[in-house]
């Protein structure tokens, strides 16, 4: 039951984080050291720290999943998150830094000479911080629960101790090092697998990307149903089925399935021929009015008013970054306003780089592993995609129907199993996606 590679990876990341954070220990002596890292953090370091703080599981897992499940319009999230820092650069970064406060409530009080505003801002900072803290705590609890079998509260307490110790000893300096480390770790964790998969994928049909194209299997593919599920076929097709399909028991029989909804019981195995349409699970079914290649967002409106929904997300993401207290306070660690400006520009570059990769992974999924559409959790795409390719570039795309061996090539330490068994990795993925809440309901950072 114990997942040794996963436990080792989590332990390594935790130890590295503590070690990196400990670099700040000797330095934090005065309030200036503790609260604003003595205001001497250079732009490059601060930019990486801001990016590390900003990018979480929603960006790491959520965006790729959203693109796979809802279409290219979900790219607006990554565009908006990045452009938000451009707005921050243009309107906020340098003046905020020049004001020279310690925290956002300090700024609010000093700028507008109001104790009441200070209290209100403090309340808002606490509320925002609470909503960031809660999913992290829950994620830690669930992850340790799954991997070590500890009670839920152990992970929560462990996370609290590690983070509190880090901050108490290192102050802002320690936090800066930790967050910078986290950015580069996250970039490597998503970038290296994406580049390797891209190289492995090589040339091939881009048919699944073509406008209006319903995804089709590029190879004969066996889909193992782990948990009973409903799925939808875009057009009629012929499959070989072992197990219960549409309440009929079948033993390696060829059946013709009409287009529309079908029900597969757990344990059923369906063999799709190359060129068959990829079935879509409930969460992946798009409103009839939109297609996968639509440049508009439809989440939350069921396909109605796509243009308004898109502009809504653009406005929210563009101006949302202006209001993140944990990001704003980081600008006080820069030496001066000019450095704050350079920091923000570098953040735009770093985020742009990062957000290339969820798109790459989502497109590769669409092209090469469309059976992930059967998964009920699109957030698992990033975790599950590498699995089919584990056998090496030569046999890439072919081994869908293999049973799942140990995870060797997953961007996250948590287990992923053969992608064709689209449901079996759900338990471990739940822990990861829970770290930042469901990306589908709220793709916040």
């Amino acid at each position: 039951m114990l997942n040794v590679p996963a436990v080792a990876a989590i332990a390594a990341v935790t130890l590295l984080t503590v070690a990196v954070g400990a670099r700040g220990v000797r330095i934090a002596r005065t309030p200036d050291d503790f609260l604003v890292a003595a205001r001497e953090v250079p732009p490059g370091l601060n930019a990486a720290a801001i990016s590390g703080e900003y990018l979480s599981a929603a960006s790491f897992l959520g965006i790729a999943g959203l693109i796979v499940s809802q279409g290219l319009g979900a790219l607006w999230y990554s565009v908006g998150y990045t452009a938000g820092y451009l707005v921050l650069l243009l309107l906020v970064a340098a003046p905020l830094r020049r004001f020279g406060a310690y925290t956002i409530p300090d700024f609010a009080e000093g700028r507008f000479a109001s104790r009441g505003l200070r209290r209100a801002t403090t309340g808002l900072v606490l509320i925002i911080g609470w909503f960031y803290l809660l999913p992290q705590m829950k994620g830690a609890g669930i992850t340790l629960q799954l991997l070590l079998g500890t009670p839920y509260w152990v992970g929560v307490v462990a996370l609290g101790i590690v983070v509190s110790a880090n901050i108490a000893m290192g102050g802002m300096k320690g936090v800066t090092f930790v967050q910078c480390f986290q950015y580069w770790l996250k970039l490597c964790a998503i970038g290296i697998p994406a580049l390797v998969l891209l190289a492995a994928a090589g040339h091939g049909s881009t048919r699944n990307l073509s406008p209006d194209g319903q995804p089709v299997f590029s190879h004969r593919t066996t889909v193992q149903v782990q948990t009973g599920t409903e799925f939808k076929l875009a057009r009629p097709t012929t499959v070989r089925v072992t197990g219960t399909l549409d309440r009929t028991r079948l033993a390696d029989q060829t059946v013709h399935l009409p287009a529309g909804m079908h029900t597969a019981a757990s344990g059923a195995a369906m063999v799709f021929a190359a060129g068959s349409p990829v079935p879509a699970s409930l969460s992946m079914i798009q409103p009839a009015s939109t297609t996968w290649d639509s440049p508009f967002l439809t989440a939350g409106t069921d396909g109605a008013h796509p243009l308004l929904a898109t502009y809504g997300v653009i406005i929210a993401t563009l101006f949302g970054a202006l209001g993140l207290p944990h990001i704003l306070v980081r600008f006080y660690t820069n030496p001066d306003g000019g450095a704050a400006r350079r920091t923000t520009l570098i953040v735009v570059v770093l985020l742009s780089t990062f957000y290339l990769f969820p798109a790459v992974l989502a497109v590769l999924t669409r092209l090469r592993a469309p059976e992930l559409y059967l998964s009920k959790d699109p957030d698992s795409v990033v975790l599950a995609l590498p699995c089919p390719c584990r056998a090496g570039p030569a046999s890439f795309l072919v081994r869908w129907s293999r049973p799942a061996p140990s995870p060797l090539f997953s961007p996250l330490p948590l287990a992923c199993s053969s992608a064709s068994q689209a449901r079996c990795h759900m338990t471990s993925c739940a822990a990861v996606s829970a770290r930042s809440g469901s990306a589908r309901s709220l793709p916040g950072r």
Partner: protein
Amino acid sequence: MTSPAEHGATAQHGATAEDGATAQHGATAEDGATAEDGARRRKVVVWQHDQARLQHDVIGLGDVQSDTVYGRLLVRSLTRAQLGLSLMCLSIALAVIASLPVVMALLPSARKATVAGLPLTLVILGAGIFPVLMAVGWFYNRQASQLEARFIDLVDPVGRRLDA
């Protein structure tokens, strides 16, 4: 508690500190804290009003420092120029971003266009728009620094650099 009059003064100082171009303000906050540390090891954990005033006093820039009408006018001109630059860059960025959905909605052919087999939407939103964002940011950074350099040359022709 401070009187309303003091509040007003603080607000004014705060505004000046925020708007002022000099990079020195922040460093001054440290100076203030250090001076107090030296005197009685009194630790200012919460940022205080008078730090804004302190910062303002230590700029060391003649007219700008002594809070004369002329000095305020100088700072105001710089603030105006910077705000104009910000708004110009912001409108460029917003025009680029906000025009995309409308163009896509009005031109169905653009929605269906492909570049080397990849949908145009993917090429633009997945990669192409990022260099545009970076370019706007880079341009703004350069222009803002130049504005500040010109301001410093104006108020301090002898050449005491503020960012020393």
